[in-house]
């Protein structure tokens, strides 16, 4: 039975796309067929982590929403970009990074029903075990739809007062939309913090499970989105935490 997992954060810059890319790569490393769809139409970026160049993008999510192609035609097999030791598959459905196409979708809107059909068609057409949805930060229509159809939702936050408040809103929305499984990932935590205390505090505040408290990492910063961290540093503490997140999302 396939699973749909959304990764969301109320604010930008929390590491949402990095979490999506790493968890999807680790799941593909376990032999699963994983689809990753970038619904951050306004500010797409996850393709960079998978090393997908603009000229390699034959079709994008935008093309599908405008009826120019089937959703599976916009899926790019990026498994080979991840490295040799991937036994499964990773397919990326990018959003267009052409300024004119971003402007067009913002100006003209699109059929939300088509997006819902696209999620389900993708799972069938590519025989996916997991579809991961990288969402736009905050709450908009595609984000709410993604959360509503998800079997599991990871909410990414930093230990920051603004994130605390915004995460509360997202948790409330997810509960209203009856998401069967909800976990929180606390990311970019300063090393000086007591991680156990952060976990306890967040779990108590939202009555939700914390899948991992991830430390701020210089290696991650230095990688600067030039690849998927878990593939570059398979034995790193952060990679182990991503494994933990993957396990909790699939539970």
């Amino acid at each position, binding site marked *: 039975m396939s699973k749909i997992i959304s990764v969301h954060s109320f604010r930008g810059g929390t590491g949402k796309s990095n979490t999506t890319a790493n968890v999807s790569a680790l799941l593909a490393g376990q032999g699963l067929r994983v689809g990753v769809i970038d619904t951050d139409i306004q500010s797409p970026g996850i393709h960079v982590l998978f090393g997908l160049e603009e000229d390699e993008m034959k079709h994008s999510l935008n093309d599908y929403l405008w009826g120019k192609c089937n959703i599976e035609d916009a899926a790019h097999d990026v498994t080979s970009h991840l490295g040799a030791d991937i036994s499964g598959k990773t397919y990326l459905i990018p959003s267009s990074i052409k300024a004119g196409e971003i402007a067009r979708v913002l100006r003209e809107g699109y059929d939300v029903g088509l997006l819902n059909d696209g999620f389900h068609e993708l799972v069938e057409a590519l025989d996916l075990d997991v579809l991961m949805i990288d969402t736009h930060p905050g709450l908009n229509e595609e984000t709410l739809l993604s959360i509503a159809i998800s079997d599991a939702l990871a909410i990414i936050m930093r230990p920051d007062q603004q994130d605390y408040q915004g995460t509360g809103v997202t948790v409330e929305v997810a509960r*209203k939309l009856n998401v069967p499984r909800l976990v929180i990932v606390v990311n970019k935590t300063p090393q000086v913090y007591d991680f156990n205390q952060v976990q306890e505090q967040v779990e108590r505040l939202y009555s939700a499970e914390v899948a991992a408290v991830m430390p701020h990492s210089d290696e991650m910063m230095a990688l600067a989105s030039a690849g998927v961290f878990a593939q570059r540093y398979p034995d790193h503490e952060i990679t182990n935490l991503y494994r933990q997140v993957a396990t909790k999302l699939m539970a």
Partner: protein
Amino acid sequence: MVRSMQTTTGANTHAGDILMAGLFNRLQDEIDARDEPGGLSPIDLLDMPKALATVINQIIRKNGIKLEDIAAELNQSSADTKATLDELVEKGYVRRVEVRDQIWYKAHFGRKADKVLSSSIWSSLDDVVEEEKP
């Protein structure tokens, strides 16, 4: 209104039948749906009465479901579920779709609102910048 769809799949009817329905029927269906006013926005799910939200949530998750399946999923009587579905159809949030003589219920989403910026937005911004100059 019930929409009829011809399918190309085998004997086992499931949600995939709707997805696999012939391309032209599907396109016609989408065109017809676009001509209808309103439709569901995911935002509507947040302030909908719980009974309606629970049913429509199942419909969205399955991307199309039959009355008896949704009643079983929600552990409700078929009569109660049918009443809720009728209300959702009445509100324009759900459509009935006929697949091989069986009625399926599918969410009817409206088009995401266009974001129309006034053509004078740039001159308005220029005015603000001018006003804010010391």
